[in-house]
């Protein structure tokens, strides 16, 4: 049994050697039938070959994509963190720039103003709806006393009403109880600026023959001892003359935005030595003068 099996194996080996030798000795010109067969075989093998190649390429590119996505996710996270950090930084810089701009305006005002002043931060607003006030972080220890004028580079804000050791209450121009002597810059008509119930400023007691009109600038007259002459108060919005009174009155729009005040300047004194200039120009004054 074992002998016959080894004999068969030997026969196959001999046939294989003969076949291979025959192939080597086969004349090339007579290889055409083989070529036909090989073409068919190649055509058949092309399909699985292409499919496997495609699958291989897909898998390779897919894997690369997954790897890329993983990297992309990490990179995205990193970029988002960076973006957040930059946004915070940008906001911080914007805030610093705005603060610097405000302080620059205040400093510039102080440079041009010959009177002793102190800059105060606004720390609160009126606790009731019956008065228009600000709370500033400067008090008696900083030299603030009652009655002093409070301004910004954009004009008059009000006067110091109450003084405590470390903070003070400032009554705004818009308060009903406030009164500032003022003059219309163009016509030189005098009047008194007071607040109204709706939180606006009004110039009252204007002479009936005055030619005051909308757009006229109203400035301090310098007649009281709180503000130097010529400080901006506001612009005339509307002029009216009530039947019951002989005077005209005009509603004003202030240059300063009272709801957004962050720093104000307290004029510690407005008396100057003889011969020294007495004008405290504001930014709007100078821009209108082209300065």
């Amino acid at each position, binding site marked *: 049994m074992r002998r016959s099996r080894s004999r068969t194996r030997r026969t196959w080996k001999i046939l294989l050697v003969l076949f291979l030798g025959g192939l080597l000795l086969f004349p090339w010109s007579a290889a055409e039938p083989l070529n036909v067969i090989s073409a068919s075989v190649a055509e058949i093998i092309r399909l699985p070959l292409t499919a496997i190649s495609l699958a291989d390429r897909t898998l390779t590119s897919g894997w690369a994509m997954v790897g890329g996505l993983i990297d992309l996710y990490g990179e995205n996270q990193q970029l988002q963190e960076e973006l957040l950090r930059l946004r915070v930084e940008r906001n911080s810089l914007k805030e610093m720039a705005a603060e610097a701009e405000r302080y620059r305006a205040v400093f510039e005002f102080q440079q041009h103003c010959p009177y002793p002043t102190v800059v105060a931060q606004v*720390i*609160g*607003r009126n606790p009731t*709806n*019956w008065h228009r006030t600000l709370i500033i972080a400067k008090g008696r220890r900083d030299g603030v006393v009652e009655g002093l004028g409070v301004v910004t580079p954009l004009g008059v804000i009000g006067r110091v009403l109450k003084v405590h050791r470390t903070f003070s209450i400032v009554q705004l121009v818009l308060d009903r*109880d406030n009164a500032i002597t003022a003059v219309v810059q163009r016509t030189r008509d005098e009047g008194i600026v007071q607040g109204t119930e*709706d939180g606006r400023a009004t110039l009252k007691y204007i002479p009936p023959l005055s030619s005051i009109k909308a757009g006229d600038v109203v400035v301090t007259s310098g007649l009281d001892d709180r503000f130097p002459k010529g400080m901006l108060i506001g612009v005339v919005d509307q002029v009216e003359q009530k039947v019951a009174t002989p005077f005209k009155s005009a509603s004003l729009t202030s240059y300063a935005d009272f709801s957004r005040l962050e720093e104000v300047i307290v004029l510690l004194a407005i008396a100057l030595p003889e011969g020294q200039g007495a004008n405290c120009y504001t930014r709007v004054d100078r821009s209108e003068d082209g300065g």
Partner: protein
Amino acid sequence: MGVDPTRLFAGFRWSGAVMVLTYASLICVVASLQVVGSHRLAIGNTAPDLMLLMVCLVGLWRGQAEAVVVGLLAGFLQDVLSGGTLWVNLAVKPLIGMIAGMLARPIISMPAWILPLLLAGLSLLSGLIVLLLFLVTREDVDVVQIVLRTVVLQSTLDGLVGAVVVFFILYVFPPQGRRIWNP
């Protein structure tokens, strides 16, 4: 839902020191919020009076005596920080606190939504008292403007803010059962 406001903190035992400390802290925090943050809730130039709300709520939940004391302190602080030359708030706040304390018992069995209305009503009353003082002490007062722009608007705002505060408190400390108030 019937609301018994006096029941809210009934389980809490107040020692004298704790009470003084709590009220002092509360007044300081609310006063700071009033001057620093209340204008953010303002409509036009009118903001809610948080100090008044605090006094009313103390009156409703803790009774007249505590409301009057808190009202005195809150009113004093408000006058110190405000631009008024009269001590109006020192007089009005304890009065309103006392009235709120008196109203606490009748509202025990009423629904919860009555509380904001009551707060708005008390704010309206407070505003009218201050207006009366204005009329007595000043000339040239535009009553209609003040009533519309300050008194009514403030009471509306107080009612709205009061509603938020009341429902927040009722949510955090839900009332348990009903109890006749016996201070």
